[in-house]
């Protein structure tokens, strides 16, 4: 107990004698109302909790079903795609490779027929190389055109041989039109020196 002054002790004693108001029933009625409200709130909360738990379990079941369905769907789609790819691959590869090889061979035959017989040793060398390249081409058919062109250039120095552009290479046109060179109306031929009288021929 705290140290109290004498008059404080008297105050405490007096306070104990204080008459109490007759509010017993009124206060109980209020308490009862508050308890009823509290009980109703509790029952509502429990009902809400039940609903929440039910919906949660419902969601989880729904989610599981959805996941299983999605997995099955993904498997079916992937199987269909793989099958399509397998069917498409041989159709694409085989004709492409044979076509390119055939074209190269046709080109070679044409070139060989056009080449003069005097160039045989060089051509023989070239043929030897082409046989190698043909083998390479069969392995890598898609790159055939680009690989052959440098091999044919060195052994055919003669200008009389007709150079044919490989059919496979598409010539791309510039999308931007170039500005013409020089003065309009004057070509390169206009600047060439021409002999007026051919004296040397006459003599």
């Amino acid at each position, binding site marked *: 107990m705290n140290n109290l002054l004498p*008059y404080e002790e008297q*105050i405490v004693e*007096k306070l104990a004698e*204080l008459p109490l108001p007759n509010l017993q029933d009124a206060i109980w009625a209020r308490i009862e109302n508050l308890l009823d409200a509290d009980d109703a709130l509790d029952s509502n909360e429990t009902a809400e909790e039940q609903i929440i738990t039910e919906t949660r379990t419902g969601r989880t079941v729904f989610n599981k079903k959805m996941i299983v369905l999605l997995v099955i769907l993904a498997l079916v789609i992937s199987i269909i795609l793989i099958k399509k790819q397998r069917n498409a691959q041989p159709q694409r590869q085989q004709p492409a490779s044979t076509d390119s090889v055939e074209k190269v061979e046709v080109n070679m035959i044409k070139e060989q027929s056009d080449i003069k017989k005097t160039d045989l040793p060089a051509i023989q060398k070239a043929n030897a190389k082409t046989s190698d390249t043909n083998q390479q081409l069969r392995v890598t058919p898609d790159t055939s055109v680009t690989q052959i062109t440098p091999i044919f250039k060195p052994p055919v120095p003669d200008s009389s041989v007709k150079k044919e552009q490989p059919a496979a290479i598409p010539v791309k046109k510039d999308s931007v039109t170039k500005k013409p060179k020089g003065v309009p109306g004057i070509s390169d031929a206009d600047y060439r020196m021409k002999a007026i009288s051919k004296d040397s021929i006459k003599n």
Partner: protein
Amino acid sequence: MQQNAAEITTLIEGCKKRERKAQELLYRNLYSFAMCIAMRYARDEADAADIMSHAFVKIFKYINTYDSTKGVLHAWVKKIIVHEGLDYLKNRSKIEEVEIEEAEQPLVTNLAIENVSAKEIMLLLKQLPPATHAVFVLYAVDGYTHREIADRLHISEGTSKWHLSEARKQLQKKLSVII
């Protein structure tokens, strides 16, 4: 006395089961004890009724937490009512923080308070500022220490001492006028 204790135990068991009849009986059993405490913190009877109703709802709500081995039911009920009374005081006015090192000791005169009625004393107490009133009741009547008061009201011990000193000063002044 033993019969009363046994009765209270059965009532507590009934309250734990949320039996309305048991709750009512326990309330009526504790009414005078609880109302006496509530009146000390309230300004009037209506406020006391407010404190009582809210305190008893809490008592019935948390009766499951009451452990008879730790203390008597009356002490547990008193704690709840005092807490509710202090909440009421806090809501009524903001308790200002006043820092002092040493509380001034008022001049103590042996007054003839015996001639003053309890009602008049209660009126004097109610005229005190809420925080001063709360500290005086907690310290002098309910026997709380300054540390406990500071913890309950969220103030420092110095502030609690200052409020007690203020209460003493003002009470002496008012009592001297009456006497």
